[in-house]
């Protein structure tokens, strides 16, 4: 189990399953390639022929509109044929197993699978069982990873802050259940960010999270001091049901990002959020729509980053 399942024998990207364990040069190649696609997305004719004749299957075992749409746009801008499958509603309910579904779709000559699944490790399982010519992109698996989100976040950070090696970055909120946070942490630490912080109440931090290379804070006042980048996370309603938090209101009061709390960070700090936002829960509207927010540029860059990942997997 020591081999990185994401890399082929010559060390090139075979699948994108997680940002963990990917060497910095590969991450940087993805970011640089994405840079070149930002131009494409701003042109009148927004298409390049890199994936012409290729089929990209969006396999969404868990409902999602935003992520699926951005992958679809990215694939179409690369001239691929895109098939969207909302599997939560069809075969799985008929008792077909995950691998049966994947094998059936492989037989339809897919070139790339974009997979979202509620179970951690689902994308790894698929990658382990597909034919060698098929590439798998993890679009979110359980609490484990959401690597294209992590990559678009570091892309956004680089766009505004240039040098990773002088940054202090804080990730705020429900780290325990967040695949986004895990992907951000691994990407940031690999790219040489000297200080990555996580801030949240103890019920939302996984045990031994410091082993991932982060500094742990429980108070915003301390955790946000002198940070350059704030990565906000979405808070799910389930956390109240499972007795991890008393109420949204108390969460907002202590961990919600307001202008007042943002003032604790550096004056030029930027604010990111993977969406969809809960205004008034983890972030105040004044901040979300304020001048330090780069939440909408994130979405635009997200398409370029996903195009880059697909192009690189296709050997471009």
């Amino acid at each position: 189990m020591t081999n990185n399942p994401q890399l082929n024998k010559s060390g090139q990207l075979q699948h994108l399953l997680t940002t963990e364990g990917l060497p910095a040069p590969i991450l940087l190649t993805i970011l640089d390639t994405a840079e070149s696609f930002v131009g494409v997305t701003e042109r009148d004719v927004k298409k390049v022929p890199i994936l012409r004749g290729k089929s990209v299957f969006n396999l969404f075992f868990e409902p999602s509109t935003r992520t699926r749409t951005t992958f679809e746009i990215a694939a179409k801008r690369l001239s691929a044929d895109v098939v969207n499958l909302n599997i939560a509603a069809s075969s799985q309910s008929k008792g077909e197993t995950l691998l049966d579904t994947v094998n059936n779709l492989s037989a339809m000559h897919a070139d790339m699978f974009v997979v979202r699944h509620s179970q951690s490790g689902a994308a790894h399982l698929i990658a382990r069982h597909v034919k060698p010519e098929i590439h798998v992109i993890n679009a979110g698996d359980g609490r484990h990873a959401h690597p294209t989100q992590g990559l678009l976040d570091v892309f956004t950070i680089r766009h505004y802050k240039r040098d990773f090696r002088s940054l202090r970055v804080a990730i705020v909120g429900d780290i325990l259940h967040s695949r986004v946070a895990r992907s951000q942490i691994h990407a940031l630490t690999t790219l040489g960010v000297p200080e990555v912080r996580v801030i949240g109440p103890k019920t939302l931090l996984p045990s031994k999270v410091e082993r991932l290379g982060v500094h742990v804070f429980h108070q915003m006042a301390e955790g946000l001091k002198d940070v350059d980048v704030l990565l906000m996370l979405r808070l799910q309603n389930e956390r109240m049901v499972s007795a991890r938090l008393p109420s949204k209101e108390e969460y907002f009061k202590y961990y919600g990002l307001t202008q007042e709390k943002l003032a604790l960070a550096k004056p030029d700090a930027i604010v990111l959020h993977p969406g969809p936002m809960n205004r008034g829960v983890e972030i105040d509207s004044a901040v979300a729509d304020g001048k330090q927010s780069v939440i909408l540029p994130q979405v635009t860059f997200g398409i370029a980053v996903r195009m880059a990942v697909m192009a690189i997997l296709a050997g471009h």
Partner: protein
Amino acid sequence: MEILIENGRVVDPKSGVDAVMNVFVSGGTITAIGTTPPGFHPYRKINAEGLVVCPGLVDLSARLREPGLEYKATLESEMAAAVSGGVTSLACSPDTDPVLDEPGLVEMLKHRAKSLNQAHVYPIGALTRGLKGESLTEMAELHDAGCIAFGQSDMPLPNTRVLMHAMQYASTFGFGIWLRPQDVNLADSGVAHDGEVATRLGLPAIPVCAETLALSNIILMARETGAKIHFCRISSAEGAAMVQAAKRQGLPVTCDVAANHIHLSEMDIGFFDSNCHLVPPLRGLSDRDALRRGLLDGTIDAICSDHAPVDEDAKLLPFEEAEAGATGLELLLPLTLKWAEEVRLPLPAALARITVEPARILGIDAGHLSPGAIADLCVFDPDEYWKVEMAALKSQGKNTPFLGMELRGRVKYTLVNGEVVYETG
């Protein structure tokens, strides 16, 4: 039916015998060791030169999946696995379908097992009806039908009042209660140790205090009731320390550990290897090391196979959804030998953990080579390496974290009641 086992290294952990000798078997029992008894005319001679001759292994935790779960394994397949692993006596768990909570079911299982004429089967009866944790089973009746102790398998018993009464009732008759300590609320839907690996992989986690909290309850109630408790498959350093403390207080408690857990840790999950989805979860390296120490100092009495055959499809799922468990009967001996080699423990002491010690916990006359004892024997080559492959396993369950690895120690002959029930082709 007289059999002579010649020139093997005879190891009997109970008597301390460890010497090259002949073993004489007749009429289902061990007639003599060393000196030829008068009038002994073997119809068969087994050349055991270079091999170890020891008591047949006794396993405290084997799931045979019958009745009801034959798609996972059958009595035929798992009994064949047992004897090919040198296991001649085994305790099987009540979590079948239906649950072993009625005397008729136990009698049927005993009868089926007996007719196969392989390993001896000792059913653990359900402690509560349907393993639901609500009302007591007819323990005395079940005992008469053949149950050797009572337990909950991996099903929770969250109602402490029911547990207390179960202990009082069982101790009335002197029956042992076998429990795998785990607090159901803290374990919740966890599938991995609450540590670095679960954090990295985003897997729902089970904290160590799920084990220690349950241990604490059980130990306090055992002190109150005087019930005889066997702790199954302990998983943590802190848990082992609590068992040690309970033993020092003189409480009648015993404890086992699964063979997987003295070799593996959470790290072995790697990239979601569902073969490492086990119950209890593989914990940290320091826990594993503490379990190994506990086994050496006697805190932990025995090693069990934790045999839980799972059908292949049930493992071809994301880690969390994949069914927990691994095949184990055929690996109990080699994994015990591997541990002994790593901690430099002499062979007789190592074999004690899978023969005489588990037999003592079961309260059965097995696991030793005294003259007159039932001739349940295991003859193995201690130096032969073999590769753990699906095709090499007799069990219907082919999944184990050790798949693909080479292990040392291969069973050559297994005798039950003085008959050769297994030999390598």
